[in-house]
């Protein structure tokens, strides 16, 4: 059964059609790549799925539930987490607190607990602390846990965004250009990290990326967008030799 299903979704801003009649689905435990030239509408697809913009028409179904038009925090609550193309860490919070904030979602205590600080509150805070520290350790960010999140090197900030997204305990993780601005060795590390996180947490992943080495290296299936339309879909090998894709990226040869 597919985990995420997008049916005839369109996104229109005034007269501009960013995404046009797009349909695709993503299976459980699949790593699906979404590629396309600049302005093809990849990030808009992300924003549609996560509820930042409700689709103008069409449906987004996640885990059997229609989530189109729901508020982002509700969609996150259903199990979709994301990272951002331009990193959006909480700039005044430490590395630890950035991740802790994401634990808010599965909190059983409310405001009165937080103020009265009974045993239940203390136990839960302790559990969250242990969970956050464990996540930070897995991803090698434990040493810098008390530093401000945005003081980390660029690659580590990207990693922290992934850790923060994982703290919401998602079923589906959306990664928006995770390799942007990374050097070749960081990219190799990132690919290992994505594979590892997918296995360890049983995730499905939807990945937007411009770097073809990364995309071809880890994606099991790829969808190609151009001007908001799907122009190709298939395994990395097929995409590589697809004439429509080559035309979209490099232009057609003169006749």
């Amino acid at each position, binding site marked *: 059964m597919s985990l995420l299903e997008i049916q005839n979704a369109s996104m229109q801003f005034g007269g501009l059609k960013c995404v046009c009649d797009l349909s695709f689905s993503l299976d459980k435990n699949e790593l699906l790549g979404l590629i396309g030239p600049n302005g093809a509408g990849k990030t808009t697809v992300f924003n549609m799925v996560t509820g930042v913009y409700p689709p103008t028409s069409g449906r987004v179904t996640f885990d059997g539930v229609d989530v189109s038009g729901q508020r982002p925090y509700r969609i*996150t609550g259903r199990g979709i987490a994301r990272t951002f193309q331009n990193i959006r860490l909480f700039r005044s919070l430490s590395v630890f*607190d950035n991740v802790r904030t994401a634990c808010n979602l599965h909190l059983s205590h409310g405001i009165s607990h937080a103020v009265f600080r009974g045993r239940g509150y203390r136990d839960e805070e302790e559990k969250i602390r242990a969970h956050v520290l464990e996540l930070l350790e897995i991803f090698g960010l434990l040493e810098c846990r008390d530093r401000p999140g945005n003081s980390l090197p660029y690659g580590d900030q990207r990693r922290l965004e992934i850790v923060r997204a994982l703290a919401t305990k998602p079923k589906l993780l959306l990664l928006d250009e995770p390799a942007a601005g990374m050097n070749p060795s960081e990219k190799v590390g990132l690919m290992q990290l994505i594979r590892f996180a997918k296995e360890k947490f049983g995730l499905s992943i939807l990945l937007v990326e411009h770097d073809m080495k990364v995309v071809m290296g880890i994606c099991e299936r790829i969808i190609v967008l151009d001007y908001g339309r799907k122009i190709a879909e298939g395994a990395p090998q097929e995409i590589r030799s697809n004439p429509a894709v080559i035309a979209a990226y490099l232009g057609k040869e003169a006749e």
Partner: protein
Amino acid sequence: MKSWNPKLALLLALLLAAGANVFSSAINPYYYDILITIGINIILAVSLNLVTGYTGQFSLGHAGFMAVGAYFSAWVTLNFGFSFGSAVPATTTVYVLALAAGGFVAAATGLLVGVPSLRLRGDYLAIVTLGFSEIIKGVIQNAEPLGAQRGLGGIVQHTNLFWTFAGVALAVYGILTLVHSTYGSGFLAVRDDEIAAEAMGINTTKYKVLAFVIGAFFAGLAGGLYAHFKQFIHPEGFNFLKSVDIVVMVILGGMGSTAGVCMAAVILTILPELLRAVSGYSWLPEQVRHLAENRMILYSILLIVLMLNRPQGLFGKLNFGSRKS
């Protein structure tokens, strides 16, 4: 990991307030007045800090919530002050209930104001909150049972050092425990990045309204304390300038720093009085005294200099009980 026990600190603060209260008759009435004003200003500044400093919502209407609390609690004690008899425990009970009621009514007003206006951000939100506080003032100015333009007098004095600083302790305790908890980290997330906060499963609307309601509650409490200290309240005492005074305390103390904001409230309450005192020292050269007489100008210049040199606030990120993870 935990370097402080918040409940113990609260208890200690309450005991300290009770202890200080014993000596209140020995304090010069002028200083006594300043002390109480400091306490009330700390409550106002700390509660606005939750809204503006921690949650990042710029509000210019805090005096409006203070007015609601002041008038409602005064109305309660004026009408029901002696309904349990005129013995001290009975009137004190009514007073405490009136303070709480003033806080809750102010909180309800905060909810009423917050829900429609929190769709707006930054300057727009500031203007809307300013408008709401002017409406509150306008309503009071026309409400005959509340004394309208004449002000409301004849309130019995109940507020003393203990009640004031118990209020300070409660406000500081409530807000600090909240923002240090995982639940309260949502406030900071909303301030830092709303889109990221939503993506992490945080209901940003809920947090913004909550900050507004809690902030309004404590402002109402401060208003109640104020009314039962001054014994006379007037709509003009809760005007735009009062809101700005509180905003200045928050900005000067450092947004999102409770310790800094408390210090700023103390300093900004004492400073004009200090300058007043300087202008009275006859042994000082005439020019100095003359300068001090224009204390409001000096005060403003001081604010400008401070802001130019410490835009992050006097105490930056300093916080009570801040701890490493």
